[in-house]
């Protein structure tokens, strides 16, 4: 029997879900922040006991293999700064995306837990989340592909610039551009969900006041 009483879900489970979402998002953001730090500054965030914090070129996300010629010395920090920043842009984008997505998911969960699953606010947040995942996913792939291409172009530029990557490398190979297909697909699924919620909202309006 339909009633106009709003049901409150178990708040503890929703609180747990919201906390879990934020924990995962923060961990993902931290991981990406660490990757961005290493990429831009060419060093590990922490180095103890006088260890050399500089990392090898192979730590660049777009590089698959980088072997120095015998006797040569080279580090990630030796490549141009603009190239390091470009290679770090996917990770920087991921930080923003993870935190914004967590914010939107938390708002949706809180509305649903308050017994208001089909409000316009929930639908708008779901749509925003979907477009964020699709847009950020496409941008991430584009940035990574651009960085990948830039690394290739710089590495191939032997001209009069000596060692273009700052050292004498015998072998360098790049990874294929990373496209976050799962993120983009999740966004598409989110769009379908928001359509379902829209239909649910319409149904709720029609049955509101029905005894």
């Amino acid at each position, binding site marked *: *029997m*339909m*009633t*106009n*009483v709003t049901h409150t879900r178990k708040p503890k489970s929703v609180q747990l879900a919201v906390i879990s979402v934020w924990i995962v998002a923060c961990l993902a953001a931290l991981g990406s922040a660490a990757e961005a730090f290493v990429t831009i500054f060419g060093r590990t965030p922490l180095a103890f006991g006088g260890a050399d914090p500089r990392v090898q070129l192979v730590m660049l996300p777009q590089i698959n293999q980088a072997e120095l010629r015998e006797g040569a010395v080279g580090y990630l920090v030796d490549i141009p700064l603009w190239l390091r920043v470009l290679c770090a842009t996917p990770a920087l984008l991921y930080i923003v995306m993870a935190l914004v997505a967590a914010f939107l998911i938390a708002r949706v969960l809180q509305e649903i837990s308050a017994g208001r699953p089909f409000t316009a606010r929930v639908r708008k947040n779901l749509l925003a989340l979907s477009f964020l995942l699709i847009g950020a996913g496409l941008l991430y792939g584009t940035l990574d592909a651009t960085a990948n291409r830039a690394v290739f172009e710089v590495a191939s530029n032997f001209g009069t610039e000596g060692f273009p990557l700052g050292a004498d490398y015998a072998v360098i190979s790049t990874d294929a551009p990373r496209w976050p297909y799962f993120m983009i697909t999740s966004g598409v699924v989110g769009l379908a969900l928001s359509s379902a919620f829209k239909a649910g909202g319409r149904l709720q309006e029609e049955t*509101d*006041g*029905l*005894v």
Partner: protein
Amino acid sequence: MVCHLDKVLLQRGMTLTELSVRTGITMANLSILKTNKAKAVRFTTLTAVCDALETTPGELFSIEPRT
């Protein structure tokens, strides 16, 4: 459309709680009906209420001009 459930209940000497128990309709829904806040009524609801109160829809509802 105006619902005269309160008048019929008074005539039958029945409370809203009793009606809820007899019909299986929640107090919340009966209250919505009684206070003229309902936007639509199911036939099953109407039948259950009329059976319990031994009345007709004509006695329960009337149409009054908009003020």
